């Protein structure tokens, strides 16, 4: 923890992530306008006193939509990575711990999933599941799972041959206890690092799916779908494109900085 605190970049990342989580939680109280309320008198109004970040093509407040949109982005990041972790870690542990045909089978399935580029697999899954924020999170979560299977498997393989695991086995501990009590705590650090970086990728992926119309459905606000609409008004209302993009960039950058910082702090060998 102290090593993490000493890193400026990671601290900046942590602060920005905390800021976005806070505005997502407090959205109903801090948003100056209703994010769905249209105002025909304010269509594409430039940023000013009434609308700090300007208004969109239906006269909705861009700032309020950014604040509410933070919910979709953070939720998508956290929920999809939780899905990947809860699938990937047990499967990876099985592969690494049991070895043999279980490992061979799981490894080939993982290879097959990794052969489909992450976003293209997520698009295909979201297309077949149907467009919604929940389905986008499932699609992203499943697409990101093989990375966690691989990482967990490799870590378990390394830990398995350590003396303390040999000792636990020699004492006659059951397999499940060795896996959960002796191996798991020793592979948590790299998983935390990977999960933080995966949240960054998941936030971009959710924004991408929403941009393509496969995530959060209108009129509910999300940064990706805001950018999709903004594309059509880029010459008349550039503020519609600037703020949502800047928000995605800042949130993703922060998770990346935090992930890099955690890696340096938790695992100095991986530098």
């Amino acid at each position, binding site marked *: 923890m102290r090593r993490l605190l000493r890193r400026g970049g990671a601290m900046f990342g942590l602060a920005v992530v905390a800021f976005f989580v806070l505005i997502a939680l407090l959205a109903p109280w801090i948003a100056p306008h209703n994010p769905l309320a249209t105002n025909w008198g304010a269509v594409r109004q430039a940023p000013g006193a009434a609308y700090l970040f300007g208004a969109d093509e239906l006269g909705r407040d861009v700032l309020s939509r950014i604040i509410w949109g933070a919910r979709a982005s953070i939720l998508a990041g956290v929920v999809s990575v939780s899905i990947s972790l809860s699938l990937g870690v047990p499967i990876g542990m099985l592969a690494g711990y049991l070895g043999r045909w279980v490992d061979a089978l799981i490894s080939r*399935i993982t290879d097959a999933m990794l*052969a*489909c*580029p*992450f976003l293209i697999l997520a698009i*295909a899954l979201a*297309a077949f599941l149907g467009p919604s924020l929940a389905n986008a999170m499932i699609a992203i979560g499943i697409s990101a799972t093989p990375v966690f299977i691989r990482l967990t498997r490799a870590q378990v393989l390394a830990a398995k041959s350590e003396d303390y695991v040999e000792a636990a086995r020699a004492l006659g501990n059951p397999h499940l206890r060795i896996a959960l009590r002796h191996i798991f705590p020793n592979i948590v650090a790299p998983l935390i690092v990977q999960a933080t970086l995966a949240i960054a990728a998941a936030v971009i992926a959710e924004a991408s799916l929403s941009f393509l119309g496969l995530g959060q459905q209108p009129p509910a606000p999300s940064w990706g779908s805001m950018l999709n609409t903004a594309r059509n008004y*880029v010459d008349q209302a550039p503020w519609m494109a600037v703020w949502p*993009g800047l928000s995605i*960039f800042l949130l993703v950058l922060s998770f990346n900085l935090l992930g890099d910082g955690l890696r340096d702090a938790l695992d100095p060998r991986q530098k």
Partner: protein
Amino acid sequence: MQKYLLQRLATLVPTLFFVSILIFGLQQLLPGDPAIALAGEERDPAAVAYLRAKFHLDEPLPLRYWYWLSGVLHGDLGDSVRIQKPVTELILEKLPVTIQLAAMAMLIALAIGITAGVVSAVKKDTAWDYAANAFALWGLSTPNFWLGILLILFFAVHLGWLPASGYVSPFEDLKANLAAMIMPAFVLGNAIAAVLMRHTRSAMLQVLSSDYVRTARAKGLNERVVVLKHALRNALIPIITLGALEFGTLLSGAVLTEQVFSIPGFGKLIVDAVFNRDYSVVQGVVLFTATVYITLNLLADMAYFLVNPRMRG
């Protein structure tokens, strides 16, 4: 070499098998009757009946998989419901556009990424190094569709130098083609440049501390020759093979970039297919992508094997 190749090929078959199951399985995710979903919004009963017979929907799942797989093995990826064309034909039609975009993006990425990586390794812990690292972080954190919109805003709307979107075939008008492709290629190359910069930096740092570089310096060689001829040449091996693995990023990025700039390529094909609920096209595109990725991966491994004599032993 032979043994390694055989081993590598032996894992290829099961991987491709699982890829096919995965992609066939996508169909099973469709809620309700697939024939109705595949028939599109009109739900023409004749079309539904035709599709049910065509996909053998009344037969058991393993048998259906077998029919589908034998089609695929004969190069038949099904037909597009919307455009009434074989999926294979559609893919081959759109592919050249994306190949041009991807090739230009890769050139830009290599030029920026390798230069930035070499500079930051040679000038480690200086302002140059920090700037290059900041660039890599920016590249990794910027959604490329946003970068695309910003570039359109600046170069097309403000300065009026480049067209905002659209595509011209290079055989019709090469200049107009390049003008339309340069922004999307830069957007697509940006993220890959960041990854290449990080790889180049770490490969160069490792090589620069090696004995033969020290010897070269001790011989009194010009620093420029040491860096470019002795160090970079050896550092390039892992960079090139890792670069081949960026193919997935390239294609994923192309989906969004082509959407922003309205370029009628491979990425736009899958997005349009998703919107038209043209599911066989979606399946075909994913299957094609995965197969190309697996092949490239194999070629990259073999290239690594060939250029690195230590691996041959």
